[in-house]
């Protein structure tokens, strides 16, 4: 792959955050948010980066102490982060981070 100048370039590594439909209006209608990363980052850092552009979305996922809301679940490769290292769980470029709300409710 090359750019117009003829110099070789590579796609910037990204981490993809996949959003449920109910949250997509808070991300400009996008279902996937791509965050550049050149190495492992924690889920907390990823959410910090997302909240820079989409502050209201950030508040829907975490409270003002930074804690993940009780009925918000975040999965990395099928594992819910609470069963890993919580928001300190690291995610690497190329991985997908999936946000799913709990089915709790009445």
């Amino acid at each position, binding site marked *: 792959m090359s750019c117009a100048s003829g110099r070789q370039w590579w796609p910037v590594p990204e981490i993809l955050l996949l959003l449920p439909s109910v949250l997509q209006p808070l991300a400009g209608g996008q279902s996937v948010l791509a965050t550049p990363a050149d190495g492992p980052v924690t889920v907390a850092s990823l959410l910090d980066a997302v909240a820079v552009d989409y*502050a209201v979305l950030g508040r829907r996922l975490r409270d003002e102490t930074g804690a993940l809301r009780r009925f918000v679940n975040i999965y990395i490769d099928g594992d819910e982060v609470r069963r890993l290292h919580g928001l300190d769980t690291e995610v690497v470029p190329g991985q997908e981070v999936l946000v799913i709300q709990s089915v709790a409710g009445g």
Partner: protein
Amino acid sequence: MVGMATAAESYVLAIGTKKGLWLATSPDRQEWSFTGPHFLMAEIPSIGIDTREGRTRILVGVRSPHWGPTVAHSDDLGATWSEPEQGAIKFPEDTGAALDRVWQIYPDAESRPGVVWAGAEPISVWKSTDGGEHFELNRGLWDHPHRSEWGAGYGGAAAHSILVDTVGETVHVAMSTGGVYRSLDGGTSWEARNKGISAYFMPDPNPEFGQCVHKIAADAAVEGRLYAQNHHGVYRTDDNADSWNSIAEGLPADFGFVMLTHPRRDGTAWVVPLKADGERIPPDGKLAVHRTDDAGNTWTRLSTGLPEHEYNSVLRDAASVDTAEPAGLYFGTRGGAVYASADEGATFREVASHLPDVLCVRAAVVAGA
């Protein structure tokens, strides 16, 4: 026609429920046009209708069980809603606390435009000077030495009532559980003011604080006179909450959540008695509002137009009065019915049915037909 808004006015009724907000407008308090649900699947425990500054701003506390709490506002009767990017209410980092629910939104007096107060869970009081778009935590109450001993009622630990006097220096707050607190310096410092209010459920039934006061309201005309609906007990103070005296005699039950006062007339207040502790339904399953016109010395049972049987309770903020003449009275039940009276409770009609549990009702006379 008595009670009719002028050609340039109409009535707004806002109903916050467990699963969304409904808004209604009416030219005459008889026929209502509804929109909603707004914020479907989020509970709306608090509403403020701010008619100052030549606009109608509806402020709502929104709480999604999944996505958390926020405060939103609309200046076009719900056609569009806004919320600040960083949130209207946000605990400072050093508190280590997070907002759980906004229980009260209280637009201040006409003479203090832009000032809006809020009461929240965890127990906290907030003040906005920009019409409710950004609030600042009241540090005096947050850092109060009693805080560690305040408890949670069944619905949570919250400041649910805020009253500010005409001067703006005296502020009364009620919390469950903790009781009534008063500030004489605009909210800088606070003292418990519960003398005479029973806390029968505690080892000492007359503590300085710890009472489960469900709602307080200020008399429209007599400075320093407040009314309180307690967890068992209905009270009045004539000395700015230095002492409280029972006014429950004549009521079928002294338990309930609602306390409303007339917008202009001294001595008039409304309660909705419930039988407790074991039942928590209208006495004998017969729903009625009770009104006093003599500051609690006597009570009149009002049930014309209400159903013969109603086993649902009415929560503390699920009732409201408007400022028309005669005043309108509105309340909703946990069974999703909303009743409205255009004659101060003499007669009611059911204006909404089968909604989710009604958590909050507010009504106002607004500009614009």
